[in-house]
């Protein structure tokens, strides 16, 4: 070959050799592990569009890990978190899950926020017999043998919320949601509950994710004049929705609004004065009065600054770490199969009060609460449910 093309050869090949050699080495490190340490995978979006929700959860999870280590670790081993960035990109989540399970060989992973990311990693956990703790409220319709769900699934919050609203002269409901699975499932449950309670649904609207122009939907609400608006609008859309609702005079005085997706963290973005007076249904509120919670909140503020607010997903992430620890100790082993088996009916006195993993369905028994947003971005808890059984596959 000619000299020039040989130079080409050298350049191209050398780059590619680098590309092939490096993965094993520098850029994809294989962490060595001391005998008295155990890894715990944390898989969340640290970059991209969902980072705004997941970054806070990681903080809570890290804090739980520190607490446990300070108290002597799990079975005498210190927990070493291995944080992977899902980058708000579902295939990346699957890729990283695989890395955690196959390269880092973590006995458990706490992670995922959106259902899409969870769906993306499920096959990986199935194939590699991994264990995932999923710390976010979600639509249910799932019961994966490799997953423990540490937050409320749809029925737990929606049914409680609907029953309570019905009690507050809730004869007519208007559902507004972002156009994806969580809102659609919630509304299905809500509709069934409404009919059971003899109330009626006078409207059901979905806005594309990221939609910011709600005036038409708001007009539809005004036309329908419901007693309650039940909202599952998420993300940036939600901010726009609340602002436009308020501006249009639907400030919660005549038509009341309740959302199952707004925690203290969302209020931060919506703006305190835009959210005040609206209701939210969550498993956890920062304003819960209990020694565990005051300790928890104080710890968060001490670690991440006094302006930090704590929302439901953070607390569920925090609980997840402990639920894993307790299950491991019950099983006296890090072996995934054993831990899953032991998880059944594991109890933890969480900041939100007692949570118990269900005997069979991998979700948690928990209370849900309804709060009314205050001017300071916190919630006045106006209702607290009984300890509710998780029911991911409701018969509707």
């Amino acid at each position, binding site marked *: 070959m000619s000299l020039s093309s040989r130079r080409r050869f050298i350049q191209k090949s050398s780059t590619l050799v680098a590309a092939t050699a490096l993965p094993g080495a520098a850029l994809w490190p294989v962490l060595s592990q001391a005998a008295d340490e155990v890894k715990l995978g944390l898989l969340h979006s640290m*970059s991209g*569009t969902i*980072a*705004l929700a997941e*970054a806070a959860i990681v903080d809570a999870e890290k804090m739980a890990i520190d607490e446990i280590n300070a108290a002597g670790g799990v079975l005498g081993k210190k927990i070493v978190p291995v944080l992977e960035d899902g980058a708000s990109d579902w295939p990346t989540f699957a890729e990283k899950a695989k890395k955690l399970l196959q390269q880092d060989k973590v006995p458990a992973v706490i992670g995922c926020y959106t259902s899409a990311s969870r769906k993306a990693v499920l096959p990986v956990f199935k194939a590699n017999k991994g264990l995932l703790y999923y710390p976010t409220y979600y639509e249910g319709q799932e019961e994966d043998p490799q997953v423990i769900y540490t937050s409320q699934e749809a029925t737990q919050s929606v049914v409680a919320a609907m029953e309570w609203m019905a009690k507050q002269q809730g004869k007519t409901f208007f559902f507004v949601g972002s*156009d994806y699975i969580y809102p659609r499932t919630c509304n299905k449950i809500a509709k069934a509950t409404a009919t059971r309670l003899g109330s009626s649904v006078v409207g059901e*609207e*979905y*806005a*594309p994710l*990221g*939609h*910011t*122009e709600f*005036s*038409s*939907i708001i*007009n*539809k609400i*005004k*036309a329908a004049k419901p007693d309650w608006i039940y909202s599952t609008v998420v*993300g*940036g*859309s*939600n*901010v*726009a929705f609340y*602002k*436009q609702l*308020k*501006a*249009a*005079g639907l400030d919660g005085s005549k038509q009341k609004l309740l959302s199952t997706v707004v925690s203290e*963290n969302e209020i*931060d*973005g*919506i*703006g*305190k*004065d*835009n959210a005040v007076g609206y209701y939210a249904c969550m498993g956890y509120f920062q304003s819960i009065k209990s020694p565990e919670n005051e300790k928890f909140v104080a710890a968060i503020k001490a670690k991440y600054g006094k302006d930090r607010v704590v929302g439901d997903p953070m607390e569920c992430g925090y609980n997840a770490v402990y639920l894993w620890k307790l299950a491991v100790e019950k099983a006296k082993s890090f072996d995934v199969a054993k831990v899953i088996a032991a998880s059944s009916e594991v109890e933890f006195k969480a900041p939100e009060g007692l949570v118990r993993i269900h005997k069979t369905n991998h979700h948690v028994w928990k209370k849900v609460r309804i709060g009314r947003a205050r001017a300071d971005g916190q919630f006045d808890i106006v209702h607290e449910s009984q300890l509710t059984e998780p029911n991911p596959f409701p018969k509707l």
Partner: protein
Amino acid sequence: MSLEIFWMQLFSGVSYTAILLLMSLGLAIVFGLMGVINMAHGELMALGAYVTFMVANVFLKIFPHSVDTYILFAIPIAFLVTFLFGMFLEWSVVRWFYNRPLDTLLATWGLSLILQQTYRTVFGPQEVTIPMASWLDGAIEPFAGVQLPLNRIFIIALTLLVAAAVYLLFFKTRMGLQVRAITQNRAIAETVGINTRQVDMYTFALGSGLAGIAGSVFTMIGSTNPGTGQLYIVDTFIVVVFGGVASIMGTALSSFIIAQLQTTFEFMTTSSYAKVLLMLIVVVILYFRPNGLFSPKVRS
């Protein structure tokens, strides 16, 4: 549909027109008159929003009593900042791409990614809160059952103001004349002694500044996070292309048509269908009028 709803729906259409027009005016100038495909236009709007956010915070810290007036300062400041940033962009990036439209498209897209990540690093990934001036809060009720949100009325008024200013600038001033001259024949314009470099820079900066105003105003009704710009960019381009490039009147008209269709469809069907329907209609119309609604016939 009751009469009240009809009025409010009509108002929604009008206010959405204002929103579309405000966000596409800047692009209509940059793309329409200069032929620069600025994919970072949305990020310039986001910049305007973040400037507003900062101004609001300054007021909260320094003059908490007169915080209600912050928006009146925020808008011009947002304009100024994005204007200057626009000049910088023109000088540092855009000017290397004149007459290479497709490369401009890709380069500015890259720029938009960098800006997004910058916002994320500087302001954090979460939504930022921007207080609402109390005098823009709530709605007026011209007659019973019809509430017209004050902030939307404000937006409509401001849009009319800006649009009028832009119109006068381009059709009644020397600068406007120069810009139009350049758009029609750069070479000739140079030979008759127009400093095209300078005019280009100011035109682009102006377009950016208008984006800044839009971004600043949208903090009243929308959300502000690093990705905000992405939400607007495609719609903005659709408005401009649909209206017919190089025609500010066209942009105004297409804002109106698109807004009316969108709000009506949204009311009749669902938001998702509305978006799809609208897009299909736009594509069909663009098929029959490839140069948009207002396309000047010229002798090739």
